[in-house]
């Protein structure tokens, strides 16, 4: 469970102080699929960094699984990211020359999982991300964008995180492959009960989630259930 209480983030740039987040509060329960939507400059990326434990808030409290992480050291934050968070980035960020399997096992290497166990978990994650088995030993730079993003999703899932955090996951993809990726998220949410937070600037993408938190200029302007949810496979 995620709880943000009055999160404030300011950046100091010389004499100029920029308030990017101006007191944001919300709760996301386990198993929710939430989109955080806002135009560029709204502070959604900063919010994602805080939710993803890449950054600490200037003021306010951020509770992840009831644990206050706003005052932790860099190494402690790294541990939290390793155990509880899976990232999916717009630019995929795969290791280009490494195989698909190796890319997926990468977080487990830092987690200190035994070698045999890593492969096992990676296979499971790849199956979960619906990644076709014949490409498992391909180099990741031989894959198409949609395939790469599914490798990235598998990598995010491999450590069995409490939260999957996707930052504009369809930003580099065309509509059709983007839908495949969104479908993957919807399935993971439905079938595995994953908590997914999707950051996007497109209302169309946000409507694939159950709930949308809209932010603008560092404030939440709307937090509501999606009334007409877009379902790729239409089965929900």
């Amino acid at each position, binding site marked *: 469970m995620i709880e943000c209480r009055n999160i404030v983030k300011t950046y100091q740039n010389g004499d100029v102080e920029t308030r990017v987040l101006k007191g944001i509060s919300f709760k996301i329960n386990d198993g929710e699929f939430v989109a955080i939507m806002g135009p560029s400059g709204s502070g959604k990326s900063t919010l994602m960094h805080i939710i993803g434990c890449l950054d600490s808030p200037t003021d306010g409290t951020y509770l992840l699984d009831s644990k206050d992480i706003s005052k932790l050291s860099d190494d402690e934050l790294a541990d939290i990211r390793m*155990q509880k968070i899976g990232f999916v980035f717009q630019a995929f960020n795969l290791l280009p020359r490494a195989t698909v399997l190796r890319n997926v096992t990468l977080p487990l290497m*830092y987690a200190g999982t035994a070698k045999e166990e890593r492969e096992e978990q990676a296979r499971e994650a790849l199956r979960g991300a619906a990644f076709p088995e014949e490409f498992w030993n391909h180099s990741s730079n031989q894959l198409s964008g949609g395939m790469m993003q599914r490798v990235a999703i598998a990598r995010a899932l491999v450590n069995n995180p409490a939260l999957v955090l996707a930052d504009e996951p369809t930003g580099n993809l065309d509509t059709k492959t983007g839908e495949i990726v969104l479908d993957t998220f919807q399935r993971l949410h439905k079938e595995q009960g994953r908590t997914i937070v999707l950051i996007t600037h497109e209302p169309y993408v946000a409507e694939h989630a159950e709930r949308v938190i809209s932010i603008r200029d560092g404030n939440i302007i709307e937090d509501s259930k999606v009334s007409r949810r877009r379902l790729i496979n239409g089965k929900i």
Partner: protein
Amino acid sequence: MQIQDLFQETYTALSANKVRSGLTILGIVIGIGSVIAMVSIGQGASGQIQSSIEGLGSNLLTVMPGFAQQGRGFVSQGRGSATTLVSDDTEALEDIEGIAYVSPEFQRRYQITAQTGNNTNSTVIGAVPDYANVRNVAAANGSFITEAHVRSMGRVAVLGPTVAADLFGEADSVGKTIRINRINFKVIGVLQQKGSAGFFNPDDTIFVPLTTMQKILAGSDALSSIAISVATKDQMPQVQEAATIALAAEHHVDLENADFSIVSQADILGTLTQVTDTFTIFLAAVAGISLIVGGIGIMNMMLTTVTERTREIGLRKAIGAKSRHISRQFLAEAIMLTFLGGVVGVVLGWVISTLVSSFAGIATSVSMSSVLLAFGVSAAIGIIFGYYPARRAASLNPIEALRYE
């Protein structure tokens, strides 16, 4: 993160850009290779000098006339003309425990002529039969001076191979007659080739019985030196001390004002070793400069790599890598580069020193210590020059690193 993960990561990273890694390694290869080659040449030279000094006779003490001055080492005041050593001194030495042989010697330069008309100016040494044992010489042809020759003041001579060649060329010289200082001597033997040992060339000498030298040629009872061969190496200090005391008593002088001095082989060797060591250090220092240049190459490559892989570092941090994981990885890459360079460099250095000794005729020896030194230095270079880039990689902010274009 396990060790084999670190190896795999390092291997992947270095093989991703083979040409660049190869060129960087080459810098270290040249550095380590030249250190190994230079040190091996230096050590080879000192080994050669050592063996030729030892070839002059094993466990050798040399008693010389003249005064030793404290703090200034041995100053030979008119060595050769000093006549403080006499034949009787030999007897005083013979009873000392640990002495194997005593060889009194008297040497002077004379003009020598042969019936062929050839003549040469060479060192003539008056010697006793034990000379052969003390100085490790042996006759290749004929025989060395015998006790009978010494007793009877025989006018016989044994030639060094160089002198024999100068006087008689290729022809067999045994049985021929030569004239030393216009006195006829019969050649009874020619020595084996021994090779020059620094300032003294035993091949370019003529040996006559000591008594003949003193009474007939020089007309003096003096000795130019007494060589003492000690039974074992361990006994050398005691024998040196005992000999000093015995001779001082014989000469009725106290030890501070002794009119002779005893130099051990170790003293001579020590001085020469000091010279060759300085030489070796000089060569190694020159080679060390190229090693430092190679290390800078490593640092340059690692800094480029860190910049290039900024996004990868950001990703690794996002998925849970701690700063120490990142710095360890880049440090491992730098050390791997220098280690590979070190291995190839040792082989290269060994090949160079082998080529030098076979083509230039300079003795070389690649010692285990220089190989270990080279490895230690290359690992140290990897750590020193890899540390800064690794720190830089580890201190990257993950958010900024992920955004880096």
